[in-house]
């Protein structure tokens, strides 16, 4: 496959930093689903594992959300702590800035993190607290980066929150540090959050091809490595439209070329690795990547053979809330699974175009969520399995539809060649489980039977 230059993509996405052409749609009262911008900002930044993440607001924003993501750490775990200023009535009346300042001091003193991220929430945004100046003052006083993240929930969707977090990184983090002189520079992985350890699989692959990871933005990241992200040679945006703006801006500021790619499916994985080597402008590396991908692909197709047999012709409805849709479709296609319905809920026009490139004409697009709508599609299109986020898992169970969790809360890694094999196994296991037959058969006394002769 020919490498694709990034300038072939337009900037109409919700995720672009450039002036928006098309605004993100307004959520519909009474029918809205999905998280808020604050949630989105956390998704992006919580994987910076050694930093402290302080939520400024009443307790629920933090209390209801901490420890809810499947992002894994290979070491430090401070980001798994739930920090909240836990505002009370009187804090709201008299202002919470003093409490915020004290909280920052306390965290700095007790946990000595390399940085503190401070999130505004709806209430503190509404009362007009000056997060930026409290953070700035604290940073100077403590000699520690204290980064305001202005992404209160009510400004918009999760996607917007991802983007605002990306902007915070650009403004306060990237470019503020330098790597050790002997560090080999390579690729920044942008928008890969190490769900269920997926990034480790990717890193291993890159390692075998001799491609170094410069900064992980932000799966299993350390604060420091993001400060020198501007020294990377290539940016890869890992199927996350929301952070495209970050990559664009880094190209403008630091001249780092970027591409969009994915690691779902062997084809996409191979393409992404090739693209890295190509943009690094390293012949030797390209040859290594070719050898590696050939080897991996042929091994994979060996191992996939029994599963392909089982999965061939199976029909799936995919509902991931947008960003991952097109990349997961490729993976499923390689396994012989036909996607008969796909969610385009949060997809941009660009995403939709890519989805269209990858599915057949008779695939149904599911524009707005609502579990009933998804189920209807499953029924009408006679799908065998539903692939969606955890929120819809038990909906599927209620309807006795085999299900695979594809979103942040899951425990299985599906990226890379290994991941595709895992996905195949998971699909086969899910479809073949005896429970579907058992659950569909009534109790013996409920079966219609002729009454006993007495």
């Amino acid at each position, binding site marked *: 496959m020919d490498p694709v230059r990034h300038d072939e993509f337009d900037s109409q996405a919700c995720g672009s930093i450039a002036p928006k052409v098309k605004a993100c749609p*307004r*959520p*519909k*009262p*009474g*029918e*809205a689903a*999905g*998280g*808020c911008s*604050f949630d989105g900002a956390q998704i992006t930044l919580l994987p910076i594992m050694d930093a402290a993440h*302080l939520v400024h*607001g*009443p*307790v*629920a*924003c*933090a*209390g*209801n959300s*901490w*420890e*809810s993501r499947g992002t894994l750490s290979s070491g430090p*775990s401070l980001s798994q*702590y*739930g*920090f*909240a*200023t*836990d*505002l*009370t*009535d009187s*804090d*709201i009346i008299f202002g919470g800035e003093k409490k915020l300042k*004290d*909280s920052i*001091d*306390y965290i700095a003193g007790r946990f000595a993190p390399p940085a503190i991220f401070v999130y505004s929430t*709806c*209430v503190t945004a*509404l*009362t007009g607290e000056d997060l930026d100046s409290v953070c700035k003052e604290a940073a100077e006083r403590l000699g520690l980066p204290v980064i305001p993240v202005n992404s*209160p*929930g*009510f*400004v*918009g969707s999760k996607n917007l929150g991802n983007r605002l977090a990306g902007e915070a990184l650009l403004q306060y983090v990237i470019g503020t540090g330098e790597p050790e002189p002997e560090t080999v520079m390579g690729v920044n992985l942008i928008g890969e959050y190490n769900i269920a350890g997926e990034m480790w699989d990717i890193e291993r692959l890159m390692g075998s091809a001799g491609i170094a990871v410069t900064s992980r933005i932000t799966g299993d990241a350390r604060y420091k490595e993001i400060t020198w992200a501007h020294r990377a040679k290539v940016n890869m945006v890992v199927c996350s439209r929301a952070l495209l703006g970050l990559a664009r801006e880094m190209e403008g500021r630091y001249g780092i070329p970027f591409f969009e790619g994915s690691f779902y499916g062997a084809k996409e994985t191979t393409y992404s690795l090739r693209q890295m080597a190509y943009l690094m402008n390293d012949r030797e590396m390209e040859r290594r990547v070719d050898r590696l991908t050939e080897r991996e692909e042929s091994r994979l197709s060996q191992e996939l053979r029994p599963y392909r047999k089982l999965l061939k012709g199976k029909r799936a409805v995919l509902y991931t809330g947008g960003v991952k849709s097109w990349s997961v479709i490729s993976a499923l296609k390689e396994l012989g699974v036909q996607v008969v319905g796909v969610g385009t809920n949060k997809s941009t026009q660009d995403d939709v175009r890519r989805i269209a490139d990858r599915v057949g004409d008779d695939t149904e697009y599911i524009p707005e969520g*609502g*579990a*009933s709508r998804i*189920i209807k599609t499953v029924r009408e299109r006679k799908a065998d399995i539903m692939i969606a986020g*955890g*929120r819809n*898992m038990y*909906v599927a*169970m*209620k309807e*006795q539809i085999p299900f695979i969790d594809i979103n942040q*809360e899951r425990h299985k890694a599906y990226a890379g060649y290994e991941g595709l094999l895992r996905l195949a196994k998971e699909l086969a296991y899910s479809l073949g489980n005896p429970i579907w037959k058992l659950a569909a058969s009534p109790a013996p006394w409920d079966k219609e039977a002729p009454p006993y002769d007495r």
Partner: protein
Amino acid sequence: MTVNRRKKPVSVNPLKIGQSLGAVLALQGCYRAMPLIHGAQGCSAFPKALLTRHFREPIALQTSALQEMDVIFDANRNLEEALNLVLSKHRPDIIGIIGTELTDVAGVDYQNMLKSYKRERNMRGGLAFTVVLPDFRGSLESGFSATVESMIDEMIQQAGHRGARSVNSRQITLLPGSFLTPADVMELKEMISSFGFEVIALPDISTSLSGHLLTGFSPLTRGGVPLDSMLQSLQSGLTIAVGGSMERPARRLHNALGTPYKVFEGAMGLKATDELLHFLHQISGEPVPLRYCWQRENLLDSMLDAHFQFAGMSVLAALEPDHLYSVSGWLEELGVEQKALLTSFETPLVAGMEREVWVGDLDDAEVLGKGADLWISNSHGIAGAKRVSAAFLAAGFPVWSELGAYMSVSVGYRGAMEWSNRAGNLIMQREAGSRESSVRHR
């Protein structure tokens, strides 16, 4: 005795859970209900995800999806839109509009909005009510009980009869506290009805969140107490409230209708169960069913068996106020040391406890509970328990680290036995683990 707080500006690893989540939970126990959170999107997405994770069931919930400009200009326009949509699309029997900190700080008057909405559309038959639940007060428990109270209020208003009503003395209204699992509510219903009473639980999560399958999906709640039973409960001869937080809704029924009530503050352990069964025996004149006599023996015997395990052991518990009170009563009977008791906010019940109680977070639990052998809290406590190397027993909300947690029983003799065995087993396993690691390999 006293309620203490550790001095610390920031909450680290919060134990507190937003009040609105308690409201959503209460409404799950009503049939064909739709909780509607009046706030921004995240305020419904987080509770929905969390409740789904705990109960492993779909959760009925909607939001008015406020955005910045809506809050500033006209938040109630969103609410109206949401109401229109929910009413026309799903036709719920019950709608609970839950105000958030956002509507509170912005000073949105949605109570009056609902009133005029109902008037204009001549809404009858269903039950629609509002409840004000900003998150900077209380916790899950207070949100739950306030919602039940508002619900009862609305029922009384709608029924319109004050004083004059026909009373069914064989019918009891059960007000189960927020800390009770679906299996607990089931057990309580069974216990009360075994004395010949009809029981109406308000709300009744035992028939909605207990994991019954094969009913298909609905955007509204499935199972739970239906509206006509709810209204019928106004005829009950008695209210039984379980958990101190449920006293207020019980009092509401008493003040408006004169229904006498009895509050059982503790619900766990031998004494608490004795008290409940004895009370039921006295008011019904029926003998205590044989199976409970058996269970009592079984419990005592298992406590005898287990007391060797618990000798010299110390326990830390971090739970919502009513739950903490209950669990502490059971720990008392086990004879273990209660190293630290923590709760999310202060209530009269915990303030009146004979033991020292701390209002704080799970980080305080780590500090106060250093050296404890057993740690009892929601699943957020796993990491802390590991750090102080205590055995971990998941309880309260949310629990995602175990299957079937929502079906575990804590009330009645059976519940006390189950918990004693669970706790004892955990301590045994921990000991076995440490013994193994102390063996020297050569």
